[in-house]
């Protein structure tokens, strides 16, 4: 298949093919180009990094590394871009950093009919039953292992909490140049200062409103009674209008034909 596609149209990407293993006849198309942007990240150096689109779901870092090493020379790192849901399933995009600039040049000059193979004897990929069984078995962890994990984490955490406390205390004790001390929401003389939470703020505001409301007299002046009557009628009308609207709504979805 010869393609005479204007490269500009496809965003200066080159294409090569990738397949699962040597027995597969159907291939996915990879879209590659040199990674060069204005703010080049230090981990993806200019001139050495290849940007790859449409990496098939079963490919892992090792197999990609292996496949490109074979045709373009040694590779420093392979990174997949995390997708929105943070799931590592699905088609991926990735960055391949070659050890030498030559590697990138080689990759870019690959023929568009060139095919990479992922599952080789050096980098076997597990899929299907074998993979799921392995995952299942790995999900069973020994209790002692877990214990160790927890202990490690909690020790770190305790240290961090302790440090935070110390810092806070420090802040409270230091007086700044103007003579101010920072006060935190911690316990003071057996009382909690109100927390800076949205709900607390709302509660305080609501209480204020209530207080205001209580001060008003209702049903006191004649005009208030008249207003109430008027309001009542308006309520009735409003309800009627609302029901009419509702009926219209019902009518749009349902014919009033009983049979």
């Amino acid at each position, binding site marked *: 298949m010869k393609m005479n596609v204007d490269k500009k149209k496809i965003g200066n990407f080159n294409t090569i093919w990738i397949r699962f293993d040597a027995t597969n006849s*159907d291939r996915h*198309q990879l879209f590659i180009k040199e990674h060069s942007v204005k703010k080049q990240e230090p981990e993806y150096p200019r001139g050495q990094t290849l940007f790859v689109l449409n990496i098939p779901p079963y490919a892992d870092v090792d197999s990609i590394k292996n496949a490109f090493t074979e045709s373009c020379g040694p590779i420093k790192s392979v990174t997949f871009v995390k997708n929105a849901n943070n799931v590592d399933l699905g088609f991926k995009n990735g960055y391949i950093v070659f050890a030498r600039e030559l590697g990138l040049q080689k990759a870019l000059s690959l023929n568009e009919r060139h095919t990479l193979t992922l599952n080789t004897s050096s980098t076997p990929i597990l899929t*299907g039953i074998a993979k*799921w069984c392995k995952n299942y078995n790995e999900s*069973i962890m020994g209790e002692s292992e877990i214990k160790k994990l927890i202990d490690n984490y909690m020790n770190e955490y305790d240290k961090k909490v302790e440090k935070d406390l110390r810092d806070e205390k420090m802040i409270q004790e230091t007086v700044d140049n103007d003579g101010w001390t920072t006060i935190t929401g911690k316990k003071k003389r057996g009382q909690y200062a109100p927390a800076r939470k949205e709900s607390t703020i709302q509660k305080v505001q609501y209480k204020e409103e209530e207080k205001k409301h209580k001060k008003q007299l209702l049903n006191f002046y004649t005009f208030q009674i008249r207003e109430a009557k008027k309001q009542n*009628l308006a309520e009735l009308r409003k309800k009627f209008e609302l029901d009419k609207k509702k009926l219209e709504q019902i009518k749009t979805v349902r014919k009033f034909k009983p049979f």
Partner: protein
Amino acid sequence: MIVDCVGVVERDRKQSEIMESEGIVSSENELENDRVPGINGRKRKGTDDLKKPKKKRSKEKNDLYKRPTVEELNQLRETENLFHSNLFRLQIEEVLSAVKVSDKYNRLFKLWFEKFENHLNSMEDNVEIELNNDTLFEDCDVRIPMKKLPNDCAGTFKFLTPSKIMVGGSYAIDTVIGPDATIDVLIEMPRSLFRRSDSKNYVYMRKKAMYLAFIGHKLDKELVQSMCFMGNHSNPILKIIPSGKLSKRCVVYAHLVVQDTTFPLTKLIPQKNNVKSNWFFKSNDNDVSVTTSPTPHYNSTIMYDLTTLQANVHNIKVIKEYPNIRDGIILLKIWLKQRDFSNNFETFNGHVITMYVLYLLYTKKLNTFMSSYQIVRNTWQYLAQVNWCQSGISLCRDEEIKERIVDYHKYYDCVFLDSTGYHNLASNVVGDTFKWIANQAELSLQCLNNTRINGFQILFMRKVNFYNIFDQIVCFYNAKALKNIVKANSDNTSELNFGSNKYIQIVKFISKFLKEGLGNRISLINIFPRKLKEWELNQEIPDDVDRLHVGFQLNPNYCFSIIEKGPGANLPEAHAFRKFWGDKSELRRFKDGTVCEAVIWANENATSSEKRQVPQQIIKYLLEQKLYLFEQVHFFFLSNQIEEFLSLKKVQVPAFQYSNEEASLQAIVLFDSLKKQLSNLTDLPLEISGVQGCSPVCRYTAVFPPLARFCRADGVNVIAGKTHLRLAEEPKDLPLYHEPIEAVLQMCISGKWPDELEALRMTKAAFYLQIAENLRKESKLSAHGSLNHIDVLKDGLPFRLRIASQKEIGLLKQLTDEDGVKKYRDTEESMELEAKLFHLPKITGALSGLHRQQPSFGPACCLVKRWLSSQLIDESHMPGIVVELLMAAIYLEPLPYESVQQPQVAFLRFLESFAREHWSTDPVLVNFNNEMTREETVDVENYFGTSMGTLPPLFIVTPYDRRSSAWTRKAPNTLILNRISDLSKEVLRIVEIQLSKATSLLCGSLFVPSLAEYDCLIRLKDSLNPRRFQAVDVDDSLPTVELLPVKNNYVTKMPVVDFVPVAEYLRELRSIYNDFALFFHDTYGGSVIGVLLRPLTNQERDFKVTNVHCHKLNDNGKLILNVSAMIEDFYILGNGLVETIDIQSTSIDTT
């Protein structure tokens, strides 16, 4: 004082605000200010002029505060007082206008009728015809619409022009329910046609039939598009479809009546005999008891013809005057028609209810000022109170009427005398039918009183299907056998009375017979009203008997009791009991020491589903033993056929007899004992304060509940590890599915949980380890803690426990804004976790409570889930909990039905509700314990109405979740809902067809999916499906698997739980290819995955970085989906599991 000042200022400001918003006051205009009342007390004038120049927005507000007109006030007030609600009133108006016959057709009919009348009046003929002739004349092929009588009628018939022709029935009083109108035309035969003695021995009927045949024969073909006879042997009707445009909307029924003075009514009262037995049986046997035996049925047929015309004239006068009463009658007739009781002259119909409304009017129970709503409501109320079977009513107010009613009760089930005081309007209404109608009226009243629901739709707009009402239906399809039964079980007197009208006889006999046998197990029995027969003019009248559907409503207190306790052995009644039940009856000693006759229908440890069969068994036994009717030869049932799909095939369960409910119960018993063990644990840093189940089995809704069993490693596929059984690297055969029961632990409140999410989770994990250890030590259970849960194996059942901590949710929700204020906002993750750990246990509790109140709930949910899954709609398309909530809604608000005892009926009701596509118009209200009040539900409805676009397509409200519909946020989507609706319609159609045509109910096809519409099918290896025995069709050749019994004194290793390769496969497929395709699979043992490509995937797309996934370039430099590679991927991802992939669609190009 200061306070008061504030008040005044406040008030002034408010007042001016109001006035401004009213558009009365504009602050710049002092002059207009003067006109406002309340400021200077002058009357308001010319407000209308003021309104005009205002802006549009304020005008809208204006409308609310403008001065009311008297009419408007009246209307608003009227609605408050006279109608249920605004909405109800508006809906009534809508429906009334929808069923109105359009003026165009009224005009057309008027023209047609004039011609028709003239035509009939000009008919004459001088030929005398023998009454015994089968056809009118030698060369005429119109057959007399009457069965051949056993003996000849003497005399001749000569046609005479009708003495009167008028439009009668509902059309005359404008209560016809259109838009397709059936118009009754009454043709009065002149008195001179008959001799005085013609009322005897069928001469009258013969002459009437000939008269009708004559009209049919002579009728101008220009007036008529087509014609046929209708009705039955003793009361034939001519059905005319008029010619021209009228035929589109109108059907004319020509009834023959006779001048009321032709025969004296006193000769036709029920106790009189009008068919002589020696004439009828051609015998000379003068047995007095037979010769004088009364013929009430025969008499009432003639009486009807005598009185109809007069009654009609009278009715027209009354009803035409009062449109409200007319509207009320129309509504009642719609209500009846939705329940299939109309358009039928043999039972409770529109005519009877019209007369009943008139009766209520005459007896001052209704008055002419009532609104149509009140008419309907009161009619229902009285209908629910009265019993025509015991105390009949009468339109006539003669003095001796009371005695006459008592007399009539001896001959008829129901008595409702007309204005002459002689004719019984309800002569053909069977007692049970009346009771059923009364019951429906009561339910409808309940519906009106229940302010939580939109009653109007339920009462008037929904078809109430026969098969959705009754728990149990028997369909007799062998008419010949039925006729024989009547012959064998009736004597000469009733044959004399009914002649060839066998139908009513059968109905009465069968219902009486079955009622006796079922006793208090049933609360109501009803026979589905049949359609009137129709036949061509030149055909012989068809047999009167036809398919018969008998429906039973079961009484929940007694219906499934396995024993029928009879009288004491030494009592005289015992003999009768023995005689009725035959061999089945045996002597039994009961717990209270009495020795009684009894019939046992099932053994003591029968499963619930077996117990549900008891009524069916009884009916079957009675029909077989006493009437020699056999299932599949003469009749079939509609009761519990589809429960078969919940049975477990090819698996032998130790210790108990498997049925869905028994297995659930077993699991729950084990769970309860585990709960006890958990709360008894000592030595924990925090005590466990509660344990709640989350798995479907805890609410009795697991289609295949987990079964306790001993699992062991076979060394090949399953390998024993230190604490767990593990899987081999590449197993060839997987053990049967073992599902853990999930539960949530609540710990005592503590302030010491860490303030960081990850740390909190680690602390939870530490708890898991601790609890697991304590369980091992104190309760001697095998338990294993892990990072996310504890696995416990209790007597062979795996449980999975998690700790619910409110703080975790809080931490997930927490965010801090730039001011340092903490805010709590729902995130995807927090909602999911909250649903799993907090909402689900709550709903599980509520649903299991519902199941305990109504034990058919659980199996009904299972049936729906099984059915959906068999149609390849699985959990990811339609979550099980959503199905359960929808079913709960049906159980909590069963109106217009009553609560249901048989799961299958609940299943059909579920389908019916889906077929209505109710989800598109209404929120689904699952009001547990009626916790939500009227205001709250209205609020929810309004919310639904205003924000429908942003809500999930199916919106479910529970008292615990009123706004978010947490369970339907992600699924089902509209596509799936539509699909379920279509499937439901199809199932209901099949059931309806089978009920009306087939000779048995075949449910198999309902559970077989159609695979043709999928683009490709992935076929899977059965041996790698741990749920293979749950499939709808399990291969018979497979060996039966025996589950190993649990060994108690043995610490077992944790078995392989919750491992289903297909599920893993589907998860991968769905997360990778969700943008391009949908995947369908039967969770319960399905061996096929249906793949449906999304509609737009076969289009070319422009090159964009976001578009390239799974695409390739074509020759034009555009992206197209790389379908062949995708299908290859299906193979690769399902390596070992996939057998083959069939490509069905032509749109998939594999090259």
